[in-house]
């Protein structure tokens, strides 16, 4: 019952996403599509881990699916993290750079 209520709340929370301004049917259905697309595609790309280890892929896929579905709506959270303020963009750029360099230096030969 709780999950059902949560799914229904999603539509209400989308209203904040489009403020200020009116919310049309097309926008809400687009956002719901984005929500489903995000969950399905992330889970689907987790299956790619089976080329490393089948057990790992199964575990990651299950955990990812449960975490993502129990945290809906994801799109407002995603959009806040990807707004175009310089602070957020610089933060993610520098974090990505450090992850790539650290991973390549110590773990580039593992794959």
């Amino acid at each position, binding site marked *: 019952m709780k999950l059902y209520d949560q799914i229904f709340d999603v539509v209400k929370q989308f209203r904040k*996403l*489009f403020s200020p*301004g*009116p919310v*049309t049917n*097309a*926008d809400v*259905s*687009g*956002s719901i*599509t*984005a929500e489903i*697309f*995000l969950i*399905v*595609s*992330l889970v*689907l*790309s987790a*299956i*790619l881990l089976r080329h490393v280890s089948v057990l790992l892929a199964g575990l990651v896929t299950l955990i990812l699916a449960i975490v993502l579905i129990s945290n809906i709506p994801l*799109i407002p959270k*995603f*959009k806040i993290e*990807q*707004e*175009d303020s*310089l602070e*957020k*963009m*610089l933060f*993610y*750029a*520098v*974090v*990505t*750079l450090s992850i*790539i*360099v650290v*991973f*390549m*230096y*110590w773990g*580039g*030969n593992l*794959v």
Partner: protein
Amino acid sequence: MNELIPLMVIVPLMAALIISAFSRFNTVTKIFAFVVAICLPIIPLASNYGLHYFGGYAPMLDNVTSVMYHPAITYSFTFLQQIFIAMIGLLTFLVVFIYLTKYKKISGPYLFLLFLGTAAVTAMLLTDDIFHMFVFFEILALAQVGIVAASSIDYSYEMALKYMILGSIGSPIMLLGIGFLLALTGSVNITDIVAAVHNGLVDATSPVFLTSLGLIFFGWLYASGLPPFHTIKSGIYSKAEPHGAALLQSFTVISMISIVLIMYRIYSALPIFEVLVVFFSILAMILGVSLALTQTDFRRMIGFLAVGELGFIGLGIGLGTQYAITAGLFQALNEIIITALLFIGFGAIVNATNEVDTRKLGGLLAYHPKVSLMLLIGGLAMAGVPPLSGFQSKLMLVQASLSCGFPEISILAIMVSIATFVVFVKTFYAMFLRPKPNDLELEGKSVPKSMIFAMGVLLIIIVLLGIFPDVVTSGISNFVGGIL
């Protein structure tokens, strides 16, 4: 006639300088810019394939180790370069044509930026020298910032400064990676570096070599606007003038493929390279399309879609077989044309309505039937509907990932295509089909004829490439066979 090879860079570069210097003479400059713009697609089509050594320094054979050294900056011109340079030249011609007909009094500096960007991407495609590529990459970044800052849209200065600050992290990091390669091999010529790696002069498993891949890869992410740079890329597309945005996205695509082909030649022996490219491509596809679904500003939406489509190109390169890379490069060619069509078409709508919010638009089909029809076909091509060109390249990509043993990637690619289709149908409905809102003023505003002409030309190419893809794919496939 190999003398034409350096002219592909020199002509737009000189034209940029001359136009900027003599922009006081309005009519003469207009005619000159038009003539140069016509020459741009013709030069690569008239030129023969071959190599050009700047300064005439031919390669030297070291008699002790029997290794060839390339002392000169080398330009190599093959079918791939020909088709892409011709396409970018055609696009520059259309954009300059739209610009010249739109304004009575032209701005010299703006035309300077357009030609400078074209010269920079042409040089990036042609060059066989990694530092030369970096120099033109920086020049391209300056031209892009200028094109964004020159637009009259609100907050364009802010977006340009943000792009520049992110760029001044991305470019030096790439320079550092080039420095690592220089330290390892003592050369900046890509053919020499590749020979050193393949002959075992460089230990391919050493951490320094791997770190150089990481650093250059980060610079590539910035150049191509894959995550974490997808927000800024879509931002600069939405803040540039529509015809400028059409050219900006083609600059992005070309710099993406020219850098990734260089990286592929140097690092293809490392399995981690393909993993990295595929990882960031999938991320770009997911984030780009899911964010495009939630946008209300349609310029920003096309920007995010353009970033999402870049993931397909990366996917083709990352899979690493001859068929997959051919598919990726063909997708790059299609994306340049299709996204340019969409930017010009939606720019025409902005021109006619002064409104960018899809919630405040509607009923435009009755007022602008030609534009809406061409936009519809362009959107279908982007989503991959047969028999248009986007369908051919996406089908090739799906087949390539199936034959590589990654059915998940095929499913993901199809899902992204469907989501792209949803984005497009949603926007098309909101802007063209539903009843016109009462407060929308449409009377007396028309779309410039030059924009419709440009869209028509691009549309013809889309349909032709969709029906006869072999014209391009067989040549690209030969080129890919050469670098494998």
